[in-house]
């Protein structure tokens, strides 16, 4: 079969809802696109552990500290699963780690921001994990089957994280004025990054990942689901939103397009976010100090002595 014939058959298969396995023939653009997408997801899991790691010493009780540490371990575990799936598409884990450190590959916008206090843990655990779960649940039906299999595990653990984050939020919401202010102050800082999290409006005509059903829904569709699901819950707790303020239109919670300032996201895409360089250097320090582990793993016999 010629490349064109293979491509045509591939398109037909995917269009019909067939799933693609690592060993199947796939167009180069599909392989590259899926690899880049999963690599960014993996990078985000690993970089997402850092802000929460910074919050560990701020845990108010030992139990909160233990549960947050367990959650961080889960996030690193997600990265391991995702890197493994990405590796089977033809890029080594070392190359992915090094591209991340060199700024050649990306990680999610929300992990480019600083954390200040325990209120951040509540917002991250509830609203950012909530946003992540909306996007990840939409990927469970992705055309790339190995990705959907690890996402099943990731989503079930994210459900737990969401519950954990909501638990922390409700404790602050039902606590002292100071505790309520902690949540509100954190929400004020995180709201715009959360809106950005879903990305700008999808270009359906140009987006190959949508075309090949690697992604199944558009950015604005996912953002809308998040708003409809979470805005009422936040409002019910007596908290308010900064710009872009969601407003009820019919039965949907809508943020006006002109209220969204995209400049911070554009800066982050160029790795010029508020915390980008500090987080990357933290990641680099960990990567370097753990070099001996990788060496011991790759040649156990040499290092056993």
């Amino acid at each position, binding site marked *: 079969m010629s490349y064109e014939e293979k491509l045509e058959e591939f398109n037909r298969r995917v269009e019909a809802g067939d799933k693609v396995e690592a060993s199947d023939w796939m167009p180069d653009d599909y392989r590259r696109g899926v690899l880049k997408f999963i690599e960014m997801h993996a990078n985000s899991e690993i970089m997402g552990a850092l802000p929460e790691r910074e919050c560990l010493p701020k845990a108010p009780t030992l139990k909160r500290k233990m549960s947050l540490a367990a959650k961080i371990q889960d996030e690193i575990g997600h990265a*391991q699963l995702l890197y493994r799936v990405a590796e089977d598409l033809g890029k080594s884990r070392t190359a992915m780690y090094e591209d991340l450190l060199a700024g050649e590959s990306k990680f999610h916008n929300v992990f480019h921001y600083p954390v200040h206090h325990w209120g951040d843990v509540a917002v991250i655990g509830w609203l950012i994990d909530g946003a992540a779960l909306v996007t990840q649940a939409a990927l469970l039906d992705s055309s790339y089957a190995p990705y959907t299999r690890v996402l099943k*595990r990731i989503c079930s653990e994210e459900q737990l994280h969401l519950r954990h984050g909501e638990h922390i939020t409700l404790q602050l919401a039902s606590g002292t004025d100071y505790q309520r202010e902690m949540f509100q102050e954190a929400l004020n800082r995180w709201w715009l990054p959360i809106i950005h999290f879903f990305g700008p409006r999808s270009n359906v005509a140009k987006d190959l990942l949508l075309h090949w059903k690697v992604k199944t829904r558009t950015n604005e569709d996912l953002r809308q689901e998040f708003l409809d699901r979470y805005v009422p819950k936040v409002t019910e707790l007596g908290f308010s939103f900064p710009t872009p303020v969601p407003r009820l239109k019919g039965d949907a919670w809508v943020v006006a397009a002109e209220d969204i300032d995209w400049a911070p996201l554009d800066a982050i895409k160029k790795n010029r976010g508020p915390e980008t360089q500090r987080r990357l250097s933290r990641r680099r320090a960990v990567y370097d100090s753990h070099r001996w582990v990788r060496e011991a793993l790759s040649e156990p016999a040499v290092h056993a002595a």
Partner: protein
Amino acid sequence: MEVYEIFRRSGHKNPFEHCGAVIAPDPEMALLLGKECFLRRREGEHLWAVRRSDIHALEDESVLEIAADKSYRFASDYRDVVDKREAARRRVASMSWGGAS
């Protein structure tokens, strides 16, 4: 370093199921990494690690397609037992009338 496929069994009544893969230098490390990746919450009570290169897979999945109509191999082909049972009952009923004469 090699790819190891990881399988876990969630109870004695269940078969081992594939749950993912890890990269490891030897089977011992593969089991350790497999446990950390896939069994942090007691999702199983036993674990296997198998070198990917030791797995023999079908080269052509189309051989699994059933060549001819073999519907008689499936329970769904016998769904009309309800009608059949009814017909048999009617038949027996007609016999007992006949037997009384």
